[in-house]
């Protein structure tokens, strides 16, 4: 089954057919979603009635409202972007600190703390959301009842969603940054110190530039994961719903090609972001 071991012809044929089927299985749902964003019919299904851009740009005058004129979806998109911005900022900052903590410092109880760091990965997203809802919203209810203090920050809404997402995205960004820091040669930093740099200057001029590709990668990943997250978000969202939740609510009412258009816009945006980071990453390592 390896290159040097001969394989029979029919085995090779079968294997190839399997791979083709596999990649078709991967591509089909996305291709179909994208294609029906352009179908000139009010319902995303066959027959094909010709191509149109209505589901993106129609302004509502013709009983069709395209994604770019759909105010509620655009508002949701903005909410998602705000959430993703804060989540990226906080989780990458925490990730940098955590990476240095676990890769460069030695202290008692490090093993246990490292397990704690990994813990959010083995907690289902729904549970992370629920526990934060119970803790913070419960606290807000209690404060309101006992002391008539309104802690609106802790009611379901954008701040709570940010907290919920940071709880697990921080672990992922830490792992990405720590993996890069592990490959760093500490002698470089020592050289900087020997040449008279203070530890702070050495960190900013030697270590941080080395970490930058990983930090950018972690930021892109954090942004995408935040943008696409549903399970944690749905438990914590208030009246200002982010895009995935808004799309889900629409979908429950029935599917329209506007959903396909929104999905396509999301896919293209994430693909661009991912391609950008990959290009940068490969440029740096070459």
């Amino acid at each position, binding site marked *: 089954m390896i290159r040097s071991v001969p394989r029979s012809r029919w085995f090779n044929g079968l294997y190839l057919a399997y791979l083709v089927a596999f990649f078709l299985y991967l591509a089909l*749902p996305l291709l179909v979603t994208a294609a029906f964003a352009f179908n000139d019919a009010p319902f995303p299904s066959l027959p094909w009635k010709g191509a149109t851009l209505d589901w993106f740009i129609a302004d509502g005058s013709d009983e069709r409202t395209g994604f770019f004129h759909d105010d509620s979806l655009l508002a949701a998109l903005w909410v998602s972007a705000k959430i993703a911005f804060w989540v990226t900022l906080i989780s990458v900052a925490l990730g940098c600190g955590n990476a240095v903590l676990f890769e460069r410092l030695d202290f008692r109880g490090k093993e246990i703390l*490292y397990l704690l760091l990994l813990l959010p990965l083995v907690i289902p997203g729904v549970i992370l959301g629920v526990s934060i809802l119970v803790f913070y919203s419960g606290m807000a209810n209690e404060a309101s009842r006992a002391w008539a203090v309104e802690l609106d920050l802790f009611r379901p809404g954008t701040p709570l969603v940010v907290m919920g997402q940071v709880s697990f995205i921080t672990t992922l960004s830490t792992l990405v940054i720590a993996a890069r820091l592990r490959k760093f040669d500490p002698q470089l930093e020592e050289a900087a110190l020997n040449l008279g740099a203070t530890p702070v200057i050495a960190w900013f001029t030697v270590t941080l530039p080395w970490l930058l590709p990983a930090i950018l990668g972690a930021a892109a990943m954090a942004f995408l994961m935040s943008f696409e997250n549903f399970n944690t978000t749905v438990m914590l969202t208030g009246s200002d719903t982010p895009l995935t939740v808004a799309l889900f609510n629409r979908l429950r009412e029935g599917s329209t090609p506007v959903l396909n258009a929104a999905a396509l816009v999301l896919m293209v945006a994430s693909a661009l972001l991912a391609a950008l980071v990959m290009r940068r990453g490969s440029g740096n390592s070459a």
Partner: protein
Amino acid sequence: MRSTSRLSLWLLLTPFALWILLLVLLPHVQMLRVSFQVRESWDTLAFGVDQYRNFFTESYYWRTFLRTGVMSLFTTLITLLIAFPVAWYIARLARGRAKGWLFLACLVPFWASELVRTYGWMILLRESGLFSAGLQALGWVDGPVEMLYNDAAVIIGLVYNGLLFMVVPLVTTLEGMDDNLVEAGYDLGGGHATVMREIVVPWAMPGIVSGCIVVFMLTLGSYLTPILMGGKDSAWFTGQIFTQFITRFNWEQGAALGVLLLVLSSLIVWLGLKLTGQSLRKVMG
């Protein structure tokens, strides 16, 4: 020097501790506490196991619980079986550029969110969907066929969601294997099955375990796919938790169900690690 290193330790330990305490540990302790609270009247609380008793006496709860667990295990197994040959091809047989492109092709669907992926499957499988239209066009069926809203559809969607998280760790471990090991297995007279069982699988075990754990966790905790693609009888446990919290405002019951889901997932992850002799650190970190 010593005092600066102590200072930097505290400077770095503080944000970590705040994050893990405020966003992970304390909320879960509180969830556990609430799950044991019994509301006696609107402002008095007592402690008891009422919510857990409800779980065991209402067959709807524990049946869904078991169903979710069993279907998640099944999904994990199918994902492993589907992903292994693909990972093998990418890691061992594809060369040069093809290797990179195939790997990238596995990643592409995951630039779309779970909602988009599920929506794509709905368009394919539903009564007015593409598969149904295709079958009619081929003349194999007379009228529209509903392929959505059943357990098979749910599993197709769940496997789809999990594939990436299985392929990546498998490729990573399989890439590190030495061809000589496999050749030695054949030279010593082993057949395909023996080489697979004695050499390849043991070598790939860290990747298999890590892939299975992640896929199992994702599946068990998934909400969109089973809710949107499942039928009337295919309830999912996360759906019940959601109902308790959002629809019924019964936080105590919801917290108890949440604790039970967490216990189930931790138990299975722990069992998986124990049975295969792996550690969480090696598998995840």
